[in-house]
């Protein structure tokens, strides 16, 4: 009896501690999420009477070329950004795991851009990418590469934004370095005694043992990359010719320029479902591929 009383008290106290989170969850997440689902079946501009139109928005969405373009841009960006971010981050972490002099300074320099983000960075890179007077074309000119249009070129605008985001690879390096330093050195010593060469050690020790870190970077990076907004809003406004028209740009335009709140809610709902399904897919694959045993 005494014991169950104690347990009940502990439970009540526990609920009290997480109560602020739960209130916030209901008011700022679950409630709006439900409301958005409801809005997605309506035609509404936020002022006039709301009209229930069933699945009309979703049907319209499937035929909306602007929507498909925004989805394509976002998926292409996310795919290439994630792959390059993980490869470059991994390579740099391997190099930075070497015990050479001055490594603290190198790490500081590589991490620094990771803390810089938002509008100021977008402005800085917009000028850096400038076709005539930008420092990037100047640098390429030194090695004999002809001027690239970057943000004003339909084919280069999206790669430009990927390049800019890769500048902030520092956070990935930090996570990978922590993972590398968690690998017991005995494993490498044993492999060396067995005559394993470098490439073999990389594939059979380092990468399997790093899989939890890679998995983490993949999930977090994916969720963030699907929502990229500021860069396109500041640097290209989605152009040229919709080349950087991210999903979020389409949402912003539908919501705040065209005031089609019902239609925008349907778009937002689709984004949520896409993020949810792909994230679950990554988690599902990782259950077979990620090695948590030794970490």
């Amino acid at each position, binding site marked *: 009896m005494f014991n169950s009383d104690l347990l009940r008290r502990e439970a009540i106290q526990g609920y009290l501690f997480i109560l602020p989170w739960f209130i916030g969850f209901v008011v700022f997440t679950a*409630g709006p999420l439900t409301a958005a689902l409801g809005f997605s079946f309506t035609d509404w501009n936020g002022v006039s009477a709301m009209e229930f139109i069933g699945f009309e928005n979703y049907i319209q969405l499937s035929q909306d070329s602007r929507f498909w373009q925004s989805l394509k841009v976002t998926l292409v960006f996310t795919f290439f950004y994630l792959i390059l971010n993980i490869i470059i981050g991994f390579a740099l972490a391997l190099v930075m795991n070497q015990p050479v002099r001055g490594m603290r300074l190198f790490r500081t320099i590589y991490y620094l851009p990771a803390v810089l983000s938002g509008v*100021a960075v977008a402005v800085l890179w917009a000028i850096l990418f400038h076709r005539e*007077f930008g420092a990037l074309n100047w640098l390429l000119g030194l090695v004999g590469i002809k001027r690239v249009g970057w943000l004003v070129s339909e084919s280069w605008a999206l790669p430009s934004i990927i390049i800019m985001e890769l500048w902030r690879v520092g956070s990935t390096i930090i996570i990978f370095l*922590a993972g590398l330093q968690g690998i017991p050195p005995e494993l490498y010593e044993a492999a060396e005694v067995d005559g394993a060469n470098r490439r073999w050690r990389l594939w059979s020790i380092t990468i399997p043992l790093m899989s939890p870190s890679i998995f983490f970077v993949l999930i977090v990076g994916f969720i963030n990359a699907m929502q990229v907004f500021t860069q396109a809003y500041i640097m290209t406004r989605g152009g040229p010719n919709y080349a950087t028209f991210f999903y979020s740009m389409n949402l912003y335009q539908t919501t705040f320029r065209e005031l089609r709140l019902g239609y925008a809610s349907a778009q937002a709902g689709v984004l949520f479902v896409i993020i949810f399904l792909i994230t679950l897919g990554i988690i599902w694959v990782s259950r077979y591929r990620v090695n948590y045993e030794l970490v």
Partner: protein
Amino acid sequence: MAASTKTKGQDSFWSRRKRLRLQNHLLTYLVLVPGALLFLYPLLWMLSTSLKPKHQIFTYPIEWIPDTWMWSNYGEVFNQVPFWTYTVNTAVITVIGVVGTLFGSSLAAYGFARFRFPGRDALFLLMLSTMMVPIWVTLIPSFLMFRWFGWLNSYLPILVPAFFAQPFYTFLLRQFFMTVPIDLEDAARIDGANRLQIFLNIMLPLSRPALATAAIFAFFFYWNEFLLPLIYIQDQTKFPISVGISSFISEYRSDFALMMAASGMALAPPMIVFFLAQRYFIQGFVLSGVKG
């Protein structure tokens, strides 16, 4: 005879290792030095451009060293736009946002880390899964709700949610709380302290490094926040730096020096915080990432 062969073999083995190591170091520098220059390049360009006189900005090839060092470009930003007001606004948002984040998230983190109650693990999973909800899904209903509250054109829609625990920070702090030995709390409980007292007087002081880490991440987040103020703030006198800069780039698009000076001033506080607190910044990634 046998002995000498052995030493000789060992010698060449060690010198081979030494040579390999030297080769390794050389390769490391060969990658890291050019890479570091490349990473610094945009910032150097920003600094150089922000200090140039007008006529030197549109010269090609680029002249990196200004003829005259135009420190006045920075002052000019304050003349052209109310940059000082923007800075104060950003500071207000950032300070309250950081305090709110630490308040709500540490409470929830303690609840999840140290209590047993039915549904705890399910609720924790639910909290983590809300990280998948894109901000765009809740944006329209939230906007309507805040309009109904009469909160438009104020910082309340940005700041009030901060006090109700953010999943990322709650996760980070919970991970740390679980590593703190429970004996200290047990001792205080025997002395008759209640759980809130234990949380405030024992857990929080012991968790300073983790709180510092969470505070730094929240600082970067609120300092750079753009979408929410863009949507909720109409009054120019209430703009944070991010919205302020975005509203003046259309007007000053060709004035590179001014834009670079403004961007430089916006980026300086995060850089300073990074240099001062690099250790906590790195620890944050380690806490959140590796055991995640």
